[in-house]
């Protein structure tokens, strides 16, 4: 089956910060919708369906808040679905919108999400509740401790130092200086990261993303309409997702078929995404990535599993500047998730930033001569993985089947 060509023709995002006390949750979502429609030069009635990107709603404290946002997203009278795969939500929501259009069911689809994590004072208690009440919840698991566990395993495997992770934070905050929407940004040094308070070994405070509020929206449509409305659309040339068991302990030791330290699931997803997009040499064919990195340790295993370098070598390349704006691969020109994390929207922001790079609309964040940009998202107990390719040309190879 040949899928209908799909492209992004417009994106919108609010600034991200700790609080948005001047507006309610759905009003925040509406801001992003209005921005995305303006960017797409579309009227609300030209949207055929709406996909709502929202992870746990317990942070902002209205259960299943997607229903609250329906009319604010101008979805009244249209098909509407919420997608939720934890931190991978935005990646999955974007891929659902892609499928809506690729299948021929709808012509133009709006993906929108809003989140506000500081409505409740401690997100990590809410995140502890994603584990079962019998075997795992009692042991203070949350996204900080869960990923600290993976990081300790990775450090042991590859000899990574705390300073090498600190350098990732320094680069992220520097990149974010070019991003008007970024929550955290600034010129800091490795010593500042090392001096920030210890949270969960090996993490210090600066190794960890902020809790952000804000909204983002993306408009995807058919190749035909995209060419009509947009001088330089971002074509969706690959979409893949891989899920794994909630039990992290199944992903460790000699019997495991993936390694919790390496995010090996992403290798499987990247293989499928690259097959669709005709990518055979990622480092040569892909100019920038917007990867999901709420912790400083999330870049190395992802860059390795995405095929940019061999396992255990990303840390050295990072030290050498290979992932700087003018390096071999621009890693998170936006500053990434380390600088901005509105959880239910974060994966969508990755896709939006990747699309803007391809469209040449990234302003101060713009990477030169962009042809392909990959976006990832990761969620649950590090168990949902999405890989999405945005390109300046339509899909080079038809999907299998």
């Amino acid at each position, binding site marked *: 089956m040949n899928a209908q060509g799909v492209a992004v023709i417009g994106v919108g995002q609010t600034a991200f910060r700790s609080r948005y006390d001047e507006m309610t949750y759905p009003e925040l979502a509406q801001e992003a919708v209005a921005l995305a429609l303006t960017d797409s030069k579309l009227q609300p009635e030209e949207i055929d369906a709406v996909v709502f990107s929202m992870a746990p709603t317990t942070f902002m404290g209205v259960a299943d808040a997607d229903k609250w946002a329906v009319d604010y997203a101008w979805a009244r009278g249209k098909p509407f679905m919420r997608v939720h795969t934890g931190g991978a939500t935005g990646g999955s929501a974007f891929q659902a919108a892609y499928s809506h259009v690729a299948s021929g069911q709808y012509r133009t689809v709006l993906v929108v999400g809003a989140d506000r994590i500081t409505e409740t004072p401690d997100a990590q208690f809410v995140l502890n509740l994603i584990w079962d009440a*019998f075997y795992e919840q009692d042991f*203070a698991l949350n996204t900080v401790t869960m990923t600290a*566990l993976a990081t300790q395993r990775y450090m042991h495997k590859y000899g990574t130092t705390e300073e090498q992770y600190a350098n990732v934070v320094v680069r992220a905050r520097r990149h974010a200086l070019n991003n008007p929407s970024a929550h955290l940004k600034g010129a800091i040094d490795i010593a500042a990261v090392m001096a920030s308070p210890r949270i969960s070994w090996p993490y210090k405070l600066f190794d960890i993303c902020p809790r952000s509020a804000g909204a983002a929206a993306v408009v995807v449509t058919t190749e035909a309409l995209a060419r009509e409305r947009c001088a330089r659309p971002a074509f969706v040339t690959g979409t893949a997702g891989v899920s794994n068991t909630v039990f992290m*302990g199944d992903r*460790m*030791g000699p019997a495991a078929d993936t390694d919790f*330290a390496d995010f090996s699931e992403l290798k499987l997803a990247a293989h499928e995404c690259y097959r669709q997009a005709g990518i055979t040499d990622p480092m040569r064919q892909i100019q920038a990535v917007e990867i999901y990195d709420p912790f400083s340790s999330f870049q190395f295993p992802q860059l390795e599993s995405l095929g940019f370098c061999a396992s255990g070598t990303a840390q050295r390349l990072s030290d050498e500047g290979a992932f700087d704006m003018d390096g071999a691969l621009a890693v998170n020109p936006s500053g990434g998730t380390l600088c901005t994390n509105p959880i239910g929207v974060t994966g969508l922001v990755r896709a939006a930033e990747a699309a803007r790079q391809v469209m040449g609309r990234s302003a101060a964040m713009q990477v030169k001569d962009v042809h392909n940009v990959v976006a990832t998202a990761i969620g649950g107990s590090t168990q949902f993985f999405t890989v999405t390719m945005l390109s300046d040309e339509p899909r080079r190879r038809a999907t299998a089947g």
Partner: protein
Amino acid sequence: MSKTAATSANRVVQGEWHVRYNYPVGEVGARFFDALKERRIVATRCSASGMTYLPPRAYCERSFEKCDGFVDAGHEGTIEAATIVSAAFDNLPAPPYAIAYVRLDGVSTAMVNFVRGMDLTDVPAAAAKLKPGTRVKVQFVELPEGRITDFHYVLA
């Protein structure tokens, strides 16, 4: 759910959720938790895949067959991942504490629990003692009551 009125100073409405739950542990879980009272840790085994699971599973996630055996896990094991928590989180234990995924002898998968009895004052020094590959043993509480918190790990 309770609410207080918005104050004119900040226009923020305060709320709190109080929700109660009753979670059934299931038959496989009941066997595991009953065994804990006898200071035994019972894993499920799938003869089709050869996998032995902790936490116990009704079905094998590799073979998609029903797990067809129960085996007693060893009371010693190997750390696969660990962390030391220095920060306080709402409704979670007071820091510092150490958490580890440990693969108990005879089991294919690792199970999370606290590692107790360590001096955690110097975090990097304590972390060096919890590297993957480190051997630990299971220590039961004095009066097990059939809960996962009936035991924890200590360095072997």
